[in-house]
């Protein structure tokens, strides 16, 4: 079985891991177009080469980042997301239109 090196738990069988998709910069959810949001959520580039991905170590519920070559399927490096995400990501709620307020009132 393939072995993946989890930054928290060490080398483990790949059956303990779940793929979480490519790591990409999130567009501003309040101001981006639907196409940009769909591109972020659903579509992947499907390129050959080294890509940066989210992976989950399922038994510990631990998300980390891996750099993987899509051709050879070799995992080159795994690391804690704190290397990239240094502060909490905050979301501001989109202001609802006044029309919907009238309907619910």
């Amino acid at each position, binding site marked *: 079985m393939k072995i993946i090196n989890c930054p*928290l738990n060490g080398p483990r069988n790949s059956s*303990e891991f779940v793929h979480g998709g490519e790591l990409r910069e999130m567009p501003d959810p309040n101001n981006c177009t639907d196409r940009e949001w769909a591109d972020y959520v659903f579509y992947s580039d499907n390129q050959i080469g080294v890509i940066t991905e989210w992976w989950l170590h399922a*038994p*510990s519920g*631990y998300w980390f980042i891996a750099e993987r070559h899509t051709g050879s399927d070799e995992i080159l490096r795994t690391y804690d997301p704190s290397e990239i995400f240094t502060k909490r990501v905050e979301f501001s709620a989109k202001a609802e239109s006044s029309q919907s307020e009238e309907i619910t009132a």
Partner: protein
Amino acid sequence: MTVIKPELFHSRSFIYRKHRQAEFAEVNGAAQTLSYAGQDDPLTGLIDLSVLPRFGLRGPQAGEALIAAGLLHPQQPNSLTVSDDGVMILRLGRTEYWVLALPNAAAERDLDALQQQLSGPGIYPVYCHDSYTWLALAGENLADIMAKVCAVDLREDSFAPGDLVMTSLARVGGIICHHQMAGKPVFSIFSDSASAGYLWDALLDAMAEFEGAPAGQNFLLSSQ
């Protein structure tokens, strides 16, 4: 005198129906198995501790709150501490901890009060009581038994007392914690409550060739 049975309580172990031949005592508003009737102590025992009190906390302030409360703080993720009065603390990540009362402390320590004390800004609760089953595997040949269901090397030289691993065992996710009680090595196993019955049977099956059998908490408290 009323005979204590799991059915007397609303709070029950997920696998209380498996303990037909057992004697119980009331702990934490539920029935804890004390011993299995008509049975000598086995070489290796599997004990259901699911009803014992425990809670979890996580967040940037969680570690400092544990230290401020005078509890033993595990230095590294994937390690644990056990205090003299039987409070076990697991460190499951950089900022996630579980606090548990071992059988010798479950009656005395008020974990509800401790949980109140360990709250505040930067600390979030983690629910680990009703969602996780707690099984303890204690006695001889623990690493050999676990080798049949788990891919991680759990022999003493790579998995010392005070270590814990989060991995899959018998194909379900779980946390395995190595500690000692009454001079016996103990592997405390935490796994999703939904698969508790399956895991109980799978571990008993793995133990069978090592003369393992189900037991109660008295097995953990009596020295060999």
